[in-house]
């Protein structure tokens, strides 16, 4: 079976996972850790990794797995096994379909604090900026099914900037998460709303950093079920006048100062309380500010409907024992396809 190299490249690892977009489907994929290859590292560092696609039948690689070539402790001797043989190692995940569901294994959480921002306790291998989908939560049923972007990530937990849960009656004590793609199949995409202020220009907090999807001048349409309090905002459309990436907020030209206070329904109200509060893209208002000469409504990178997550792609897990390597490692990669 002759192979064709369809694409290849190199990157310097940050220690986090890397998504490699592929111009066509792939049948075989390799990575080399060029930095670690000549060294004799003290741990079982992966220096080469391989992935086999579905055309290999029973020999195909399972999701989040692959063959790893690793150094034996403090020597140059090579050993081979699979990523799945070590729970601390994650491998390759090939994603070729939409809706984009990276088949990351479910990961149990041990708690979500009722604080602002909320903090999650969980043994994890996530990275800052990952989007995590929560489900099956015990306590905090009102967020089960929502997606959140994570930050201040450590191996034992992370922070949810987009969830200010100080008003919640109780913390979550259990539940599950799964990492999903940052982008849905189509952008701009709907976002979950976690807070709306009562102000002349309402400030809307979302569960993820909205600056990745929305810019000033775009219009957004609100869907706010009665169970969230601020029902006056339901079905209104506003124009974005400010975006705050640090606090995950959008400011819109809607005067909400006389509206009912926005609040999550109580966990005890599930499953009958209507969920979720969301916003969705509603075009743009094209304008020019004669003082600043700033024109809005022409940002075709964001406001035009377009494919969100390009598929297929190969997700390389990060870390010394994974294909994307540890921080500062130089990784070469190459994707192959069986010849037609």
């Amino acid at each position: 079976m002759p192979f064709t190299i369809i694409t290849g490249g190199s990157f310097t690892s940050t220690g986090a996972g890397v998504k490699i977009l592929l111009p066509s489907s792939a049948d075989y994929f390799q990575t080399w850790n060029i930095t670690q290859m000549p060294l004799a590292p003290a741990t079982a560092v992966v220096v080469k990794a391989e992935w086999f696609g579905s055309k290999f039948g029973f020999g195909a690689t399972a999701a989040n797995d692959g063959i790893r070539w690793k150094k034996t402790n403090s020597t140059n001797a090579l050993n081979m096994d699979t990523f799945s043989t070590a729970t601390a190692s994650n491998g390759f995940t090939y994603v070729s379909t939409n809706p984009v569901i990276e088949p990351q294994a479910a990961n149990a959480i041990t708690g979500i604090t009722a604080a602002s921002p909320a903090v999650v306790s969980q043994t994890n291998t996530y990275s800052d900026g990952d989007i995590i989908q929560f489900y099956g939560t015990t306590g905090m049923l009102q967020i089960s099914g929502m997606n959140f972007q994570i930050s201040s990530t450590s191996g034992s937990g992370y922070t949810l900037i987009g969830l200010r849960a100080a008003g919640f009656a109780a913390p979550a004590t259990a539940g599950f998460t799964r990492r999903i793609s940052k982008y849905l199949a189509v952008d701009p995409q709907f976002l979950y709303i976690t807070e709306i202020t009562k102000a002349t220009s309402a400030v809307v907090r979302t569960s993820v950093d909205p600056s990745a999807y929305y810019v000033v001048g775009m219009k957004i349409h609100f869907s706010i079920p009665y169970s969230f309090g601020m029902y006056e905002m339901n079905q209104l459309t506003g124009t974005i006048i400010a975006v705050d990436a640090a606090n995950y907020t959008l400011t819109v030209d809607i005067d909400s100062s006389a509206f009912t206070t926005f609040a999550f329904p109580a966990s005890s109200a599930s499953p009958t309380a209507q969920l979720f509060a969301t916003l969705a893209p509603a075009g743009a208002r094209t304008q020019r500010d004669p003082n600043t000469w700033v024109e809005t409504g022409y940002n075709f990178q964001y406001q035009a409907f377009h494919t969100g997550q390009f598929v297929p792609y190969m997700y390389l897990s990060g870390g010394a024992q994974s294909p994307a390597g540890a921080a500062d490692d130089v990784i070469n990669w190459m994707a192959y396809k069986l010849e037609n």
Partner: protein
Amino acid sequence: MSFPTGITNINNMAPELPVQASEDLLSTPQFNLIHSFGVDLHHAETYVGKTTRMSRFERLSTDGGQLDGSGIDPASEVPTRTDIDATMEIYAKSIVTNEQVVLWENSKTLTKFTALLGQWLREKEDLLMRDLFSSSVSYINATGGTNGDQPSNISLNDVNNIETILLGNDARTMLQSIDAMDKFSTGPTRDAFIALASTNLTNDLQAVQGVLLKNAYPQQAGLRPEEYCSISRFRFFVSSKGAKTPGISMLGRTVYTIPMYGLEAAAKIEQNNYTAVIGYRPPWVVSSVAQNSQLYAKFAIARAITNQNWISGLNVTTRQAS
């Protein structure tokens, strides 16, 4: 077991050709194409970029306006325009065939492969529109069902809630009413919005209060095969490729997304001079020894939600875990 005999039979003279091709090929499976027929079709000109802008003027305020006789003119109003942009994208698929297949296969492979590519064009377009609906629209969790999950299974209250939203936003229905007729076990349907659902939901749709299954419509002429039933102000169309997300309900079940909308809620844009191209590259082009030929199909499409006020929908689970 073979018995010695003087009779010529199929044991001592087996057929020269042990197999024959049936007169017709069996059907190639095709899923119901439900995500495109309810959207508006626009066309993009060539040589003017890849982004199409669709614009809508919003209505003027009806507040005030009465002249009080003082001679003072009422304040003028600046109309606002909403611009909906969509980026053109191109998709392609090819089949490379060795000459020996063409030479010896019974079923006229190049013709059949061309038909397969034609089917791919329609199916891919349908899935792209499905992805638009699942990514860029706000959905509300059903809560009127009885399965104890969040979202719950679909109920009449949930369907009526979406009708309230659409009517409150002045959405227009898409399908005309079907008048009552003097036929047993049939009932009229109102003018209706449309709803797009996974085939996994048909069991639950049948159980919704007031459901009118398709066979109970007074007339069957002109109905699409993909249609399943009418509930309240919605007529439901089903596809095995309806949007769903596995394992994310409160109880860990699959959540199904049902877009529900009226006229001019969404659009697809075709590229002039580039829509649905099917082509053939002969062996002397594809292969250095002229043994492989190639069939390809490609098309250009842009897609957009053109009015969020006129589209909504439900997230639901099923009564039986799925």
